[in-house]
């Protein structure tokens, strides 16, 4: 059973991330780490990557969108995602090790706020396209803390109390 890396750019595009992941150098790093399958969700991206298999049994799958990424997340052993809040939370709630890659072309994008905080809290790794290789080489996935889902029931009881119910 091989190990799979899932890369997701979310609803828009992030070509820089796709080309960074698929450089020869980074593919080699991934292979050294024991991964043999790469699945890329490229969104609106213009990357012309085609699915391929190399002789060294490393496969790459590419697709633009799916109604749900849940299946791909489940199958993944490592997720590399754009730093958008929705994608990060989805991967963490699935209990997957995550590298959030910030898009430096989108300055002051509030979407990065959450990824940054979750990085500070030790739930994920955080890097740019340029530092992805270094992060892959130096990361220790066992050091990541498990992300616990929030507590909507606390909100429910707070609201009942505030409204004088019960």
């Amino acid at each position, binding site marked *: 059973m091989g190990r799979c890396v899932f890369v997701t750019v979310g*609803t828009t595009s992030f070509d820089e991330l796709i080309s960074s992941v698929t450089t020869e150098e980074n593919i080699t790093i991934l292979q050294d780490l024991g991964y043999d399958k790469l699945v890329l969700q490229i969104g609106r991206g213009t990357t012309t990557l085609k699915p391929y298999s190399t002789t060294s049994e490393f496969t790459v799958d590419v697709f633009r969108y799916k109604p749900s990424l849940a299946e791909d997340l489940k199958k993944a052993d490592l997720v590399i995602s754009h730093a958008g*809040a*929705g994608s990060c*939370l989805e991967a963490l709630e699935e209990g997957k090790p995550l590298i959030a890659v910030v898009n430096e072309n989108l300055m002051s994008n*509030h*979407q990065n*706020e*959450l990824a*940054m*905080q979750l990085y500070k809290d030790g739930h994920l790794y955080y890097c740019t396209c340029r530092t992805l290789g270094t992060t892959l080489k130096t990361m220790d996935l066992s050091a990541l803390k498990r992300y616990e*889902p*929030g*507590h*909507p*029931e*606390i*909100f*429910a*009881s*707070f*609201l*009942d109390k*505030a*409204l*004088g*119910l019960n």
Partner: protein
Amino acid sequence: MTSQNQEALSCPALLHLSGSGMQDCALSVGFGFLVAVLLLGIRTRWVLRGYARPRSRKKDGLSLLVVAGSGGHTTEMLRLLGKLSTQYSTKYYVLAETDTMSEERIRSFERSKVTGIEKSMYSIHHIPRSREVRQSWSSSLLTSIKSTLHCLPLTVRLRPDVILCNGPGTCVPICLCALLLGIIGMKNITVVYVESICRVESLSLTGRILYYFSNLFIVQWPLLKEKYPKSIYLGRLV
């Protein structure tokens, strides 16, 4: 000489009279305006401070108006709604006209909890979008006014006990209409705003507006609680 002189004599007197009359008039209008603004301010504060909570507990539960938004907002909202007690027996979902994805998700959410007593009444209502992503400020203002005009009859018709919203721009006009209903004494609506989990250190535009126009303002990260002392922090909720 007589008539002309009389006119000449009376004219300044008349002018003087009407001049002071106008001054008085302007003064009293100004004073009245100030009093009106002051009273409106006090009334608005009174409504917002939560003195106007739905006090009479209804046997048939409270009605809840939920403003749903696109994508992430809807995900967060459905999580909050999933744990609400059964005392909110009627739910009104208000959606932006262009949002069909959320409507489908809401319908499947409601279908999923059709189990005997938990089944609640719900309906879905559409309003024009008040602000598209990346729309400019000035044109946002115009569409917001249009949206408010559309929301007012809806809010008056539904008259919910509670409004719950979490960020889409659509909720601003609805909440302002709710405030208006409270000010004129038609219905006391409790406006509850929950800022998105994505907001760690800065509020969204909607949040920055509704911080001043909501009864309960909830944030999900401690840093925001520090910056906005009036907000409520209950930990991470979604």
